[in-house]
C-alpha cells in the first residue's frame, strides 16, 4: 500500500462523491477541496460556523490586546461605499490530511484547526468542536487518542489520531468477513478505515460511498 491507493478515493467517486463524503455534521467544504497533493490527500478549509459565543479566538485576541502595544494612529478614511459589518463569533476552520505511514503501514489522519486569522486552535478548543459521541469514543477507546506529531510533509506539528491501534481494529472490522481472501480491496479498505476514524472526529461516511 502506498499513496497510490489514496488516489482511489479521489478517482472512484469523483469530485461530487468526495464532497459528499466530507460533509458531515456541521462541516462545510469551502470550494473544491479534496485533492491529491504530493503523496497525501487533503481536505482543506472545512468550516464550523459558530454563533456569537465566546471562543478561543476572542480570548486569544483579548489576551493579546492586554500585552499588545497600542496601534492607534490617525484614522484612515472610511468612505460611505464601504459596508460596515458586525463581527460575529469567529468560525473555526479545519484541514484534514490522510497520509500513509511507512512505519505503521496504515493510513493516518492528520488534522488541525485554526481561526481565520491563522491562529491555530489548541486541542481543548478542537475537542469542544467535536460532536458529543466523538469525545465519548476518544475517552473510552484505547485505540484512538489524539496526539500531536510532526506532519511528515509540512514539518509542523499537526494533531493526529495515533496509528498504533489501527492495524488491530481494522482486523476486528474484517473479522467476520469469511473467508479472508488475500487481503481487502484497496478502496474498500480506505472507506472502512475512514468509517471508524471519521466517527472520532465527527465526519460522516455517507451510504453512497459504502455502496460503491
Amino acid at each position: 500500500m502506498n499513496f497510490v491507493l489514496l488516489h482511489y478515493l479521489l478517482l472512484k467517486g469523483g469530485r461530487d462523491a468526495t464532497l459528499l463524503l466530507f460533509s458531515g455534521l456541521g462541516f462545510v467544504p469551502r470550494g473544491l477541496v479534496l485533492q491529491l497533493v504530493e503523496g497525501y490527500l487533503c481536505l482543506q478549509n472545512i468550516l464550523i460556523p459558530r454563533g456569537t459565543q465566546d471562543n478561543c479566538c476572542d480570548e486569544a485576541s483579548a489576551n493579546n490586546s492586554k500585552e499588545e502595544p497600542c496601534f492607534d494612529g490617525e484614522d484612515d478614511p472610511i468612505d460611505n461605499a464601504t459596508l460596515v459589518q458586525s463581527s460575529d463569533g469567529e468560525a473555526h476552520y479545519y484541514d484534514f490530511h490522510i497520509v500513509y505511514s511507512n512505519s505503521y503501514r496504515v493510513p493516518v489522519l492528520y488534522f488541525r484547526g485554526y481561526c481565520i486569522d491563522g491562529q491555530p486552535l489548541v486541542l481543548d478548543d478542537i475537542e469542544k468542536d467535536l460532536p458529543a459521541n466523538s469525545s465519548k469514543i476518544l475517552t473510552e477507546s484505547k485505540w484512538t487518542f489524539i496526539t500531536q506529531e510532526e506532519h511528515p510533509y509540512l514539518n509542523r506539528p499537526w494533531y493526529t489520531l495515533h496509528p498504533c491501534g489501527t492495524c488491530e481494529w481494522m482486523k476486528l472490522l474484517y473479522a467476520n468477513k469469511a473467508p479472508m481472501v488475500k487481503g481487502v480491496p484497496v478502496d474498500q479498505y480506505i472507506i472502512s478505515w475512514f468509517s471508524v476514524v471519521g466517527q472520532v472526529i465527527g465526519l460522516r461516511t455517507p451510504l453512497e460511498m459504502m455502496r460503491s
Partner: protein
Amino acid sequence: MAGHDNGSVLQFAPFQSSVDEGFWHRLSSLKLNQLGIDESPIFITGFYAPCSHSQVSNHLTLLGESLPPEPSAQSSHLSLRSGNRNRCSVPGILYNTNTLESFQALDKQSLMKAEAKKIWEDIHSGRAEQESSVLSRFLLISFADLKSWKFYYSFAFPALVLDPPAMITSLKPASQCFSLEEADSLTAVCNEWRNSSTTADVPFFLVSIDSNSHATIRHLKDWEVCRSDGYKLLFGFYDPCHLPNNPGWPLRNFIAFICSRWNLQKIRFFCYREHRGFADLGLSLVGEALISVSQEWKLHKHIPKAVGWEVNKGKKTRCITLANSMDPIKLAVSAAELNLKLMRWRALPSLDLHMLSATKCLLLGAGTLGCQVARMLMAWGVRKITLVDSGKVSMSNPLRQSLYTLEDCLNGGEYKALAAVKSLKQIFPAVEADGIVMAIPMPGHPVPSQDEHDVLEDCRRLQDLIDSHDAVFLLTDTRESRWLPTLLSSNANKITITAALGFDSFLVMRHGAGPLVDYRSESMSALSAELGNFSLADRDKRPRLGCYFCSDVVAPIDSTSNRTLDQQCTVTRPGLAPIASALAVELLVGILHHPHRIFAKAEFANSMDNGSTEQPLGILPHQIRGSLSQFSQMTLVGHSSSSCTACCSIVVNEFHNRKMDFVLEAINHPTYLEDLTGLTELKEAANSFDLDWDNDIDDDDECVEI
C-alpha cells in the same frame, strides 16, 4: 436592497484576509536564512476564489507559497504564482519591519497611496485588460517577532474611491434576471470557464448574451469586439462575498476601471458565485450601477483617493502567536509529554504525570550515579532536579558520567554540579535544574576550629535543601558522606533512596519513615482509611523499614585515608552504575505512586504475599541487591535498628534538641555516636561473650595440619 429608481449609494462588502500558518513559517525562515535585516518590500501572491457557500464569504488567503521561492535576485516585475480553479492569484506587496517601533511608524497613508497609484497606472496603461487580477492588488504590513514567535500584521485592499460614489439602481439574484435558456447557457459557459486551466484563474471577464439566448464569456481585452456585437453585456467578476444585498470588494476597482477606461456611466455587473464548485445563479447577483464622476476624475494624472485597510473587531492590526508550533523548546516539551502520555494511555492509566512533574528531587552526588539518575528522572517527566557535588569534572569522568564531555574537563575542569545542570538543559530545555557546589560534612573527618563556622553553614544548607525537596537520592561515593543526609531526611521524614556500588554488586534501597512521625497525627489519618483492617495496635507495632546504616554495627568513620590505591579509586564494573541508577529511579516512581508512599511496607519478588495492593507499577521492595557476576537480583528487607547511628529515635531526638551542636560533635568524635546509641555497649557485650569451642574432633583424618 431592492431597486430604487433614484438609487442609493452602492455599498461593497470589504475583502477579508486569511493567513495560513505556513505563510508565517515561510516568512520566518526567509528572514532568518536570507533577508536578515533587509527591509525592502517583498512581492507576494494572494489567493482567492469565488464564494462557494451561502453563509460564509471567501477570503483572500496567504499560504507558504505566497512568498517567493528562490533565494536568488527577485525580479523587479511581478511573476505571479500560477493559480487554478481553487486559487485565483492576486499580486500583493509585503512590508515587513525589523522592529515593533518601525512597524508602528510605517506611513500607512503613503503606502496605500503608492498601491493605489499602481492600480491607476495599470488601468491607464492597459495592463489591467491583459492581467485583470492586478485590479485586486493588496498590501500587507507586518512585524515578525522571531523571539516570541508573534506576528503583527495589517492588510489593505486598496479601492479607488469614486467621487461621487456609484449609485445602485438594482441588485437581484442572477436567476431572476435571465430567461431559463439564458440562465442555462450562462451556467454552462461559467462552468466551462472555471474548468479550463487557461481561464480558471481569470477573475474579471465580460459576459455576452446574444439574441439566441446563447451566452459567451470573454476576456476583458475583447471589449471592442463585444461592444460592437451589440449584445446584452455584463461585466462579470469572481465575487468572494456571500451577502445577498452587497457585491464584493473586487467590484470597486473593476467599476473604476470600466468607467475611466471605457467611459461608461451605466454598468451592469455580474457577481459570480458558486455552490459546491459549480456556478450558482441563485447565489450570484446581477446589478446595475450608475457612475457620475467628473471628467476630471478620470484624468490619468489625478490619482483618486483609496480606502481599504482591513478592520477586524474594530482594530486594524492583528496579532497571532505561533510559539506552540515554532518555538523549538515548546516543541521539545510537547514531544516529551506525548511520550509519557502514550505510556499512560496504552499501558498505565494510573500514571500520575502531573505529580511526577511537580516532584522536587535532590541528588547528592553528580558522578556516575548522579548523572544517570538525573537523566532517568527527566525521562520520567520529573522537571525539578537539584544536584549537589563539590568536585570538578576530571578527564576520566566523561566515560562513565553521562552528563559530561571533554570540554567540561578542560582548564582544570568545571564544577560538576554546574556542568551537570548545563548538560541537562541542553538535553531538555524545560528542565528546572539547579547545581550546588558544596561538600557534605562527614563524621570521622574532624573539622579544624577555624572551619567550624563554614561547616555548620553547609550543614544548615543541606538541611534546607532536604526540607525543600520531596525526594532525596544519596549517590555519593563514601559511606560516611551518607550519614548526615540520612539523619536530616529521617528527621524531616523525606523519601530517601540510596544507591551504593561495589565492584560487581550494588545496593539500591529506600529508607523507611523517620522515627518522629506521630502515627496518630494528621498525615496518618489519610492512610488510616486504607490501612483498614489493621488494628491500631498493629500499626504502632509495625517496625519501620531501615535506612542505609541500620544494619551496621559501626558508626561511619573515615574510610578514605589510609586506603590502598585500588581502594581509593572506586573501581566498579561500568554496567553497574547505569543499572543501579535506573533501579533507583524506578523505585522512586513506585513509591510516589504507592498510596502509602514512604510508609509502604516491603514487598518481595515472586512472593505470594503481594496481594492486598496490586500496584500497576509492580511490587515495591525495600532493598534490591544485585550482582553482575551472577546477573541476578534479590529483593530484601531490613527493619530499622533501635541502635542505628543515623535514624534511630535516640539520634534523631538528640538532633532535634541540640541541632548543629550535635552534628558537630558527631562529626568530630565518631565514637560519640556509638556511645549514644548503645553500640559501644553492644560491642563490649559481644567481645566478652565466651564461646565454648568443642575441641573434640573425631574426624582427625579429614583435617590436615598446615
